[in-house]
């Protein structure tokens, strides 16, 4: 409940934040604080300095073009969930954001913060991998871009260097593309509201057949994974219930996570059940 002592610096700009990170080995970024502050209260995380980037206005905001949606890292889950532009251009993102935690947490939690935390039970990482998102990251050596599938390294571990800041997330504006549909389904942990299993399905149809299928499963492994076998099995097929069921049955991700609420065996089972539902819903939304 009572964190250990810590120093605090409110960054005035992105550069200021990066410089402070560079100079202090024990410094941690503070955005919405809804991963970090709970850890500090448990004394599991004991940073020496908090670098608060929560007031840097340039790091939040939503920009939509015909092809892309660019979201500032400090954009709250509430803002993403409520954004009319995201609901039109990349609806699966708004759908997932609305399922994160609860209203108060969504008012403070940020998309950048969630992604940098890489919690296996979070919602956004699964989405980002499914959307082939690109993350813009700035450090002492300037800006670089990291693909979502290369960003998540291990349990609670990303490709971010200690002195780098995730600044924006770019996803395709698939909502503007005909024949594309997406769906995110989540089995909520009844206590924590985290995803016990989260499945993101994106379906692209052409001539009544699946041109592209993306199925990403989160919550059963350290980081979300493509259900590659399922994606292959669906490609080129008619998205009938029978074909979808058959494709889902080939799912072969080894579930490594489990707890007293849901064992790894049950999670693997849920992944299949939810994948089928998500694919069917995505198909319906794709106009199939």
């Amino acid at each position, binding site marked *: *409940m*009572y*964190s*250990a*002592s*810590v*120093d*605090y610096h*409110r960054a005035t700009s992105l550069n200021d934040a990066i410089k402070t990170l560079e100079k202090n080995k024990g410094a941690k970024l*503070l955005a919405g*604080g*809804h991963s970090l*502050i*709970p850890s*500090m*209260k*448990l004394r599991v995380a004991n940073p020496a300095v*908090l670098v*608060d980037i*929560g*007031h840097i206005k340039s790091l939040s905001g939503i920009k939509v073009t015909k092809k892309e949606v660019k979201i500032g890292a400090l954009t709250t889950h*509430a*803002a993403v969930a*409520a954004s009319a532009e995201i609901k039109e251009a990349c609806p699966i993102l708004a759908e997932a954001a609305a399922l994160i*935690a*609860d*209203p*108060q*947490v969504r*008012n*403070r939690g940020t998309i950048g913060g969630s992604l940098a935390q890489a919690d296996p039970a979070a919602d956004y990482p699964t989405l980002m991998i499914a959307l082939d998102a690109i993350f813009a990251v700035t450090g002492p050596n300037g800006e670089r871009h990291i693909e979502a599938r290369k960003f998540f390294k291990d349990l609670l571990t990303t490709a971010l260097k200690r002195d780098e800041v995730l600044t924006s997330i770019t996803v395709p504006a698939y909502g503007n593309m005909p024949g594309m549909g997406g769906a995110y389904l989540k089995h909520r942990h009844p*206590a*924590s*509201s985290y995803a016990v299993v989260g499945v993101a399905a994106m379906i692209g149809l052409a001539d009544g057949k699946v041109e592209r299928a993306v199925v990403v499963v989160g919550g059963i492994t350290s980081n979300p994974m493509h259900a590659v076998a399922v994606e292959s099995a669906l490609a080129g097929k008619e998205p009938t219930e029978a074909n979808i069921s058959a494709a889902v049955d080939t799912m072969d991700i080894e579930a490594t996570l489990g707890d007293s609420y849901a064992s790894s065996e049950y999670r693997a089972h849920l992944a299949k059940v939810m994948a089928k539902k998500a694919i069917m819903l995505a198909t319906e939304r794709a106009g199939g």
Partner: protein
Amino acid sequence: MAQTVSITVNGTAYEREVEPRVLLAHFLREAIGLTGTNVGCDTSQCGACTVLMDGAAVKSCTVLAVQADGSSVTTIEGLASDGKLHPVQEAFWEKHGAQCGFCTPGMIITVVDLLNNNPHPTDEEIRHGLEGNLCRCTGYQNIVEAVKHAARAMPAAEAMPEEMREHAHA
């Protein structure tokens, strides 16, 4: 090392010294003396500590006072104006939405934000909107009734207390 923070609470500006690790909830309760906001857990689940900060409901146990420097906060004590209860407060009284009362301040604040964003919520929307607030006494039944009663009694624009309206996203 202690820092000076300036936070407007219920319309009054306060300047205080505070250690960075101090939670906004503790700051409000101890430094300012507004004990209406309660602390019910230590893992950010229960929502008893909910306050309005810059127009949105937040869990003050998961915000550091230093993060709120320069912000505007409304606590339960700031809802009534000119001795008149806020319609949500009236509704909780009318519909027996409080039993032991411990979750009530945070619950009422969440409902204020909920109705500001969604003036005529369905039962399902209400129940989902309260996912960040735990109550052990009422079983939520009369809280849901209170929300519906408040929604009927109040034009949408009046949900947010006046000093919050410029901040609130509708």
